[in-house]
């Protein structure tokens, strides 16, 4: 049981890592003018909800399996994702808005955010991996 929880969260975490890398690549493409703001934002906005769901899934999994430490680790990130999504103004085209991404250093802060998330997910990855192995051995 324990092992199953961690295996699934490991898979989930992998997906999140891939997503973070994808975000970083796309944003840096925008930074270097390889793609324009419009296509960059529509690409990224597509993945905002999947990311949110994946993050929520990991959090809920930890909650139901009563791993409090990992749950508390995941909670701020999940709530940040939800907050960010809810706080999008009505007129914007999503979390990433092509008309604003080049203003007020938004691109930089998005980039920073993606980097931090990548770091966080990598950390989680190893925690899950360790816990999974531990669980498998205990079994």
């Amino acid at each position, binding site marked *: 049981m324990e092992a199953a929880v961690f295996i699934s969260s490991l898979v989930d975490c992998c997906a999140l890592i891939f997503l973070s890398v994808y975000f970083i690549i796309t944003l840096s493409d*925008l*930074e*270097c*003018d390889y793609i*324009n*703001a*419009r296509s960059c934002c529509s690409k990224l906005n597509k993945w905002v909800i999947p990311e949110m769901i994946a993050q929520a899934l990991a959090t809920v999994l930890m909650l139901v399996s009563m791993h409090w430490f990992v749950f508390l680790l995941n909670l701020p990130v999940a709530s940040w994702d939800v907050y960010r999504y809810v706080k999008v*103004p*009505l*007129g*914007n*085209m999503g979390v990433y808005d*092509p*008309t604003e991404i*080049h*203003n*007020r*250093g938004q*691109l930089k802060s998005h980039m920073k955010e993606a980097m931090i998330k990548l770091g966080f997910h990598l950390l989680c990855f190893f925690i899950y991996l360790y816990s999974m192995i531990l669980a498998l051995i205990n079994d």
Partner: protein
Amino acid sequence: CNTTKRKENVKSHHMTPSNILQEKTVPLNGNSISQIYSGDSSSTTTGSASPVPNSYESLEGGGYSGTSLQSPPAGVPAKQAPPFGYNYPTMHPAYQQSPAPKPDPSPSHGGYNPPGYQPYSQVLTLLSSALGGLSGVSELEAETLRPMNLLQERNILPPKRAPPPEPNLSNDLRKVNCSPDTFRCTLTNIPQTQALLNKARLPLGLLLHPFRDLTQLPVITSNTIVRCRSCRTYINPFVSFLDQRRWKCNLCYRVNDVPDEFMYNPVTRSYGEPHKRPEVQNSTVEFIASSDYMLRPPQPAVYLFLLDVSHNAVESGYLNVFCQSLLDNLEKLPGDTRTHIGFVTFDSTVHFYNLQEGLSQPQMLVVSDIDDVFIPTHDSLLVNLKESKELVKDLLNALPGMFTHTRETQSALGPALQVAYKLMSPTGGRVSVFQTQLPTLGAGLLQSREDPNLRSSTKNVQHLGPATDFYKKLALDCSGQQIGVDLFLLSSQYSDLATLACVSKYSAGGVFYYPSFHHIHNTAQRQKFQKDLQRYLTRKIGFEAVMRIRCTKGLSIHTFHGNFFVRSTDLLSLANVNPDSGFAVQMSIEESLADTSLACFQAALLYTSSKGKRRIRVHTLCLPVVSQLSEVFAGADIQAISCLLANMAIDRSISSSLSDARDALVNAVVDCLTAYRANGSNIQPSGLIAPAALRLFPLYVLALLKQKALRTGTSTRLDERVFSMCELKSQPLQQIMHMVHPDLYRIDNMTELAALHLNDSVIPQPPLLQLTAEKLTREGAFLMDCGSVMYLWVGKCCNEMFICDVLGFPNYASLPSNMTEIPELQTTYSERTRAFISWLLESRTFHPAFHVVKDDASTKTSFFQHLVEDRTESAFSYYEFLLHVQQQMSK
């Protein structure tokens, strides 16, 4: 058949280069060049940076990206030292590794590089030699730095509209520098480092008016447009020639070759004088671009008019005014033989007009399926103006009568815009939308969001941002297809301009708003609409434009203000560009500018003229770099600072909240004056001290806080507030300053004394008055110039001579309360007054609405709201505001 004809037209125009070359570019001034070619048709050296140009970005050339370079840490101490006897601190190794510039023959071209560890005095001498002598300048600087106690000095307003501060440059550079009307920087002395800029607490940014109507513009036709090979900067007066064959870019410092063609100077017809070429003699030039700068053959001028014909629209009677105006100006629409025109009207359905040449009368096609709107026929909805002129005229004559009895109250603006997009996407062009109410049908329908009871609330104002992203998305689609959308909103009810304006904002259009427009009941609005249309229809227009702003290595632009879409980090995509729009950008200093004495900014606007020519207008501005905080303050351009702050405040009020934005504005003054106080040790501690250059700062900020856009507590309709925001964001600086701080003159006692003599007319020059009721007297008549509107306030006991001679009425009592113009009377008084007013209007492109305001009329509130120095129920007077600032500073 029509389209194929058009295509042929395009082709023939494009494919014969001789055709392009033979067409004479008319020089606007006598001594400028119109044609420059060299005999040899050498291969161009200006090929695009990327081998396959697949977007305009690559055409215009990639900008210099400073991000890849290691930025040396600031070489200035974090702690502010007293201005004299101050040494450079130990330099960071990275700083010393910064590339040393090559020995430079001309001292004024950025060869100044103080080696580390240099005492300040030595730096100063170097600096003074670099800037061509400071002797005359330091006096000027002393004057702009003179500390003033704002609480004591009452008369801080200059008698005339103050000219922008002159950058502290050598005469040679000053002469060729870009006009401040086109290009202005908030700080005419650029601080060396971000740390220094932060210390000054002033925003660093540029205000541009790049497509301004110019009376003098050197136009250059040349096979090679000389540009820097690495950063793609156009050659400009501020580059340095190392020798005859090489020049050094003033933005990225790369050394480039001078192409052969450039050695020949067509003005003097001499060889071997590249520095005498017009590109190097003028900071504003226009190039005729070659096909390297095109992705497709230059598009023709295409105009589509999208007209609201619902009951509400018919009632307001705008259709008459519009059709008449267009009929009058049909010949003057900018364009050539390829110009296309089309009309779409809409209420709850969308109506198209077939204007195919050969039809006996325009044919109306109605599409009632607004959920999935389609174009009924593909050929003849946009027609060649020349070929179908008679039909167009017929339609314009018939249109106002066609809908007089309509009962349709709904408005399907969204679907109409969608078809406009579909119609225009093959060519691009300009869509002019006339809307009179909230869109109620189909895609993009909106609900009323305004609560009239909250109009005067002092709490937060809601709904400043758009309600849906429909209009934004559409605008971005339009922008991608080179379609610009201009919005004319003529509505008496709430129409959610905050949402509708998006369609223009991001497609580089313009927004015009005529609240409570009625063709009979509101003559002032009708006249304004007529005159605006006149200007709108006949003004210059540029199609499929992009603008790139480059700055000296080390500076970077991080925020843009204005109507456009920022497509990549420094490229603004402008589907249409018009001469009445201004732009602003904010900058930061990423790398220390210590190894240069000059900072340069270049705005290049690539556009297709209405005659189907690809042109590049290039403006270059050069400013000195300084290392002292006092010099930064001395060079502050308070008007530019206020405008940039206004732009920032509006962004803030939309993204955060209005009260945040207002607080930020007040803090800007407080921080800046605190920084000044902390810097100067020799000034008295009491009072509110500001350097003379910044003495108007609190006044302008107070005026901003009392603008319709940003005020609270005074009843302001949401649409008017949003419109005021749009204006502040997209107007050029002069216009904004008139709006924010209007000019007040007493005009009933103007004398010839100190008058201006232009040609054979005498223009009196009354002094500027402070905006306070204190300055008004019942015996006088006062003119207030607010940019887009002018008020003539007539006091109760005004000189009857004035009323009679100028206004044409026997006495005050007989003056009507809704006068909207000054009659042309043959008296000296009248002539003098009219000469003065038309002198004020000279540089203005849109004719302001004119109101004669009687002291006892109900309209006087609209006049008095502009007296920003006075106290209102909800806002500080100027003196109170100063006290408030002082109090905040002492916290």
